[in-house]
């Protein structure tokens, strides 16, 4: 492999090192100044760092980001789902379990008696959303912090999937991140 020829100045090494050190020095003093300004004037947003202090501060995610599922509702609050099993069939991880039953309304054929998603198996591919003919399942809650001390917390049943609050915790489950419930991402 041909190596780039270095000039004499570059081979002396010290001038090039000084250039690098000058860059880091510039960053050091610039950020130090911004930090100092932020200390004395907290209203000023610090430009000194690119870090986001998760979980207190969260980055807004794009709306098309695939996150925890939810079941969309009819006007009466019942799920739009007609238990056609398209999502369960499309699912490559086989994490959707549906049990169908008769719908009281004769215009609608079926409804799910049970609709469970095993979040520990889900691969967030979004195929279930693509497969659904009724727009009954979506992955737009913006929530993905599925970390529990117990596997039972990771099995989301129909009631959990219909819950409007994406931060709701399944009954009896303890979430790992204590702060997760208190902080919600900006812009949602």
């Amino acid at each position, binding site marked *: 492999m041909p190596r780039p020829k270095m000039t004499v100045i570059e081979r002396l090494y010290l001038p090039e090192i000084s250039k690098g*050190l000058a*860059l*880091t020095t510039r*960053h*050091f003093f610039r*950020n*130090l100044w911004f930090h100092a300004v932020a200390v004395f004037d907290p209203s000023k947003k610090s430009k*000194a*760092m*690119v870090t986001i202090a998760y979980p207190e501060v969260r980055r807004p995610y794009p709306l098309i980001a695939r996150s925890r599922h939810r079941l969309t509702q009819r006007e009466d609050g019942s799920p739009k789902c007609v238990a056609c099993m398209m999502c369960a069939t499309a699912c490559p991880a086989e994490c959707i379990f549906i049990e169908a039953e008769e719908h009281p309304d004769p215009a609608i054929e079926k409804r799910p008696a049970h609709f469970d998603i095993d979040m520990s198996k889900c691969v967030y591919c979004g195929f279930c959303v693509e497969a659904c003919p009724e727009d009954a399942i979506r992955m737009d809650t913006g929530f993905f912090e599925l970390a529990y001390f117990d596997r039972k917390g990771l099995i989301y049943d129909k009631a959990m999937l219909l819950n409007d609050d994406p931060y709701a915790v399944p009954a009896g489950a303890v979430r790992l991140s204590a702060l997760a419930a208190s902080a919600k991402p900006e812009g949602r």
Partner: protein
Amino acid sequence: MEYLEFLAAKYRDISAAFLTAHPAWLFIIADVLKTVAMMSVVMLIGGLILSWVERKQSAIMQDRIGANRADILGIRLLGVVHNLADAAKGILKEDFIPPKANPFLHTLAPFLAVSTAVVAFAVLPFGGDVTVLGQVIPLTIAPLPVGLFFVWAMMGIGVYGVILAGYVSNNKYSTLGALRASAQVISYEVVSGLTVLGALLIYQTVDLRQMVAWQGGHSLSQIPGLHWLPGWLPAWGVFLQPVGFILFFVATIVEMKRIPFDLPEGESEIIGYNIEYSGMKFMLFMMSEFVESLLFAWVIVLIFFGGWDLPGLKLGAFGVDASLFSHAIPYAIGVGLAAASMALKIVFFLWLQMLIRWSLPRVRYDQLMNLGWKIMLPIALVNLVITAALALLV
């Protein structure tokens, strides 16, 4: 209240009178105070502040926040609490000694590494002389006439801690790490010794206090051909030995085994001499690095940057003989200015070491040896010869 004042005045008189009559006690008290002050500064900076600076300075340089999550009752102190957490972790961690290692030598090694570095501070002056109750007290724990050699000897012994650590761990990788470390440190001790010889030729002393006095007592305008320079420009070592200073600075970074020359440790990936150490013993190795970085910053300031000398304020031995300032400047302010200038120079060099540590990538081992033996050693020799010739002529 009046009674209290009376008592205080009475005891002040008695103690002053007693110490004037028995100066031996004065020296004992001064020695204890100096030792306590010096050791607390060294331990505070080496054990607490530098690891905090390492975290925070790197974060600020790299547009990050830095470690700030550890807290005591919600008090985070800009991340200082992390160092307390470090200490708690080090103490509570299992102190593992490999089954086939010699437990005594295995425990001795980290103490050897850190104690030799700490002992070297005994000869480092933090000021000239102060006169208290008619007695001249040198602001050095041990005002040794051969101070520089003592520092060098202690650094030489410090390598034994590393070799011992690698060897008694009874582990092939740590032995290899120790070999790398000793080869590196010993190679660069040659360079650093030769570069300092140039400065010694000029100062004609190895007493660190005399070196500072020389730099404070001379000015650049005294050099033939440079008489047009203003008289207050100090004849600091860095102006007389610029090449020597750069070589010495690089050599000290190699000797304290910091990035970009951290091959013996290779914190993140290479396996080093300290792999069989855990808990507080491992932290002692880390601490010895920080203590050494303070030591070398101090030595550089003493040899090349005039110690506590402040241009314009002639403080050869803290006797304020002002040239720019008037004689009216009080003694205490002069002492304070001198101490502040010394501290500021040391802080600058600690900062520079950290800046280099967080800016430059690590060199390869062959590059390290090439740099030491084929580049720096010849330059140091030529520098020495030229300095000797000039010292003869001038």
